């Protein structure tokens, strides 16, 4: 168990270092941050001086060395645009993204799993077919398009939901939450639905496939042969066995929710890290972009690890093997 953890942590560290390197190198090419930071009338001389002062003229290895050295101390530099420590900026934005992702994920699970179970158990029913086609329609529309349409219909035309932002938030000191206020919940619904739709489809299809698989196994046949009640078979035996793969893949999807979050956050002006990143792209705010990427990598790696640990909890076979 401990050996397993150490091994995984080592791999995670390697992944993070490589991501750091890539993040660092790639953003050297993203554009000229200086042009963004000064007015049009600033002289070439002043711009060159600024570039020098920011260390943009140093060689890449030197810059990378400095970056890593500071990064391991938790110092990711100041945002070029906002003049604030990047770590603070991201820390302020992270709760918004995590709340949005979790609510979206929750919606996806609450709606996706029952739909998947139903269409897996009754693959021939017309409702299952409808679920299947509807879910395909869901992933055939780009996220941004869905977001725009939801805003247009529910925000503007029907005026049922706010069209942007987080609503009222409560500051808990280390976390700002919108989930303790009515307007916070009111505001999160449209973006969470937008973000969750793809995941919902995905989870529904995954659960369906797994249920279909499990229902073909001998132990389900045997359970039926023993006369175990249908509900017990479907929701006890079958569903529990589908949970293992669903958990793994859904966990990995949580990571990609953060990636998809960029688009949703920008459409709904949701003040999370994705929006920060999109803004950083347009202003070539290199420290923000690099740190964001590292953060995403960290989230991915941690989720992977957590999923593996959960896996151990759910599946007794693995528990024994890893001892």
């Amino acid at each position: 168990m401990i050996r397993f953890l150490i091994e995984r942590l080592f791999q995670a560290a390697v992944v993070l270092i490589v991501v750091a390197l890539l993040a660092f190198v790639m953003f050297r090419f993203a554009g000229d941050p200086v042009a963004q930071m000064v007015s049009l009338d600033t002289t070439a001389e002043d711009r060159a001086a600024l570039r020098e002062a920011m260390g943009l003229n140093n060689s890449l290895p030197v810059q990378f060395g400095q970056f890593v050295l500071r990064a391991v101390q938790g110092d990711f530099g100041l945002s070029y645009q906002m003049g604030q420590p990047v770590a603070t900026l991201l820390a302020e934005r992270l709760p918004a993204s995590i709340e949005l992702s979790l609510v979206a994920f929750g919606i996806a699970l609450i709606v996706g799993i029952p739909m998947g179970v139903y269409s897996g158990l009754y693959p021939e029913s017309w409702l299952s077919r409808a679920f299947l086609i509807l879910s395909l329609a869901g992933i055939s529309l780009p996220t941004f398009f869905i977001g725009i349409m939801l805003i247009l219909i529910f925000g503007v035309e029907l005026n049922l939901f706010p069209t942007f932002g987080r609503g009222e938030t409560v500051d808990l000191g280390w976390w700002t939450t919108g989930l303790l206020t009515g307007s916070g919940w009111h505001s999160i619904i449209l973006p969470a639905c937008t973000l969750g739709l793809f995941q919902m489809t995905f989870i529904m299809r995954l659960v369906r496939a797994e249920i279909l698989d499990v229902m073909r196994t001998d132990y389900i046949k045997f359970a039926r042969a023993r006369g175990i009640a249908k509900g017990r078979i479907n929701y006890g035996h079958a569903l529990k066995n589908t949970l293992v793969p669903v958990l793994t893949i859904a966990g990995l999807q949580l990571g990609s929710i953060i990636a998809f979050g960029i688009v949703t956050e920008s459409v709904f002006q949701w003040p999370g890290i994705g929006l920060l990143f999109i803004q950083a792209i347009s202003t070539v705010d290199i420290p923000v972009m690099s740190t964001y990427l590292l953060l995403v990598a960290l989230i991915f790696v941690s989720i992977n690890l957590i999923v593996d640990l959960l896996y151990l909890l759910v599946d007794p076979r693995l528990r024994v093997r890893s001892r």
Partner: protein
Amino acid sequence: MSLLAIKNLTVEYPSRKSTFTAVRDVTLSVERGEILGLVGESGAGKSTIGTAVMGLLDAPGRVAGGEILIDGQDARSIANLRGARVSMIFQDPLTSLNPLYTVAQQLTETIRTHRRMTRAEAHDEAVSLLDQVGIADAETRITQYPHQFSGGMRQRVVIALALCSQPDLIIADEPTTALDVSVQAQILDLIRDLAVSRGVGVILVTHDMGVIAQTADRVAVMYHGALVEEGKTAQIIHDPQHPYTQSLLAAVPRGERKLDRFPSLTYQPDGAPAPQEMTLTDDWLRSKGKDENQGTGPLVQVRGLGMRFLTRNAILPKNRSYIDAVKDLNFDINRGEVLGLVGESGSGKSTVARMIAGIHAPDTGSITFDGQDMAKIASSHERQALRRQIQMIFQDPYSSLNPRMRVRDIVAEPIHHNRLSETASETSRIVGDLLEVVGLGAAAGAKFPHEFSGGQRQRISIARALATRPRFLICDEPTSALDVSIQAQILNLLKDLRDALDLTILFISHDLPVVRQMCDRVAVMRNGQLCELAETEALFEAPRDPYTRELISLMPSL
């Protein structure tokens, strides 16, 4: 009134083009305390009868005619039929148990479904059931998960589960096929006991006549969905009336005496031609390459052979743990002989075969072929020349042929690789001849493997193995996945080839009767080590090693 009475049962599987009739007009009955053996080859419809009784036919199968009565009542009208009245045991104990629940959970759940019991009562009942099916220390083991049990123990758990609801009838669908012989005997005894002590009726579905002979009171023989013969076990085995039953019994390898050949009595009701017996006239196969040196001494010498598998990886070598699949093995294979290698699953016999065939590199020891140490040949050309002379036939005819290649390409692959033919037309002629030799006909080359039955596929494998004109053939359980009648044909083919081509064969099997029919000498393996190596008849008649003795005593016989 019979416990179970099946009258004129017909089961159909409609598909879009035609309707496949899996069971045709079958009438059967089972009494309390009686074991009815339902025997037949694959596709005979014997399992379908079992699932039809349970009402568990897979879609789109349906009962098209006839009735199933339990104590005179239509089975379909019995509300709590499944579990309460009829229970079932499946073939593979590894997949019959839900891996995520403990044995206790699965048992108590089933008990409480059928009987009004508190959780604690159900638990006690579960422990006692486990005890009854012969699981020692049931009190502790009941809290374990299925994967913590061995195959045989799991099948006992499965039986305990089937008994939870105190059924009147148990349908056991090939309950021992996946098990080693020693375990098989125990499970069959258990089933026997159940029938006697509890008065439960049992339908024992199997393809194995030995199992039937040992266990069943009465036998029903099925062929292509129809019942061909039914009667007392002794009568069917010793005096079969129907020609199909006769041919089936004739094809069963006898453990008690050695035959020269399997009788070529093959039942063909629809007049389809039986696979031709081989006529080996082709000179390409017989012509020896110039590079083969005809030495003396054993063809293959195995010295100190060992191989271990990593069971736990670690960065520090001392923390790694291994299991010895094969340990310090020494034996010779003489020129022209058939050496049998027997042992239960996990004994390491396949690993030995794979090392000799060059698939795995041994960790220790050496393999010498025709006087040359295989590991010490530096030139890849020479190694290839040597390797060409060693070929292998695998166990599973369904996975040993690449499904995306045409048969002719499969057979031609070794020819191309060893550059044994100059031109494409020569290759295709050789391939055609090879397919003729194994009794498939040259036209088979244009087809894909999935268009053939298991026995035919095994013939393709043999053709491929012959294509390099090998001197040494490794047969790794070549017939264990085949029906007995097909097995007999393949074994005859191998015997003929051996005689015609002077082949030396390493014949691996867990089936002692087959080994007795095929081999000149037999080596017995257990836990990666050699127990005994002796002339076949000597070994069967007077085994020296206690393990060998046990194996032979458990050998089912007709």
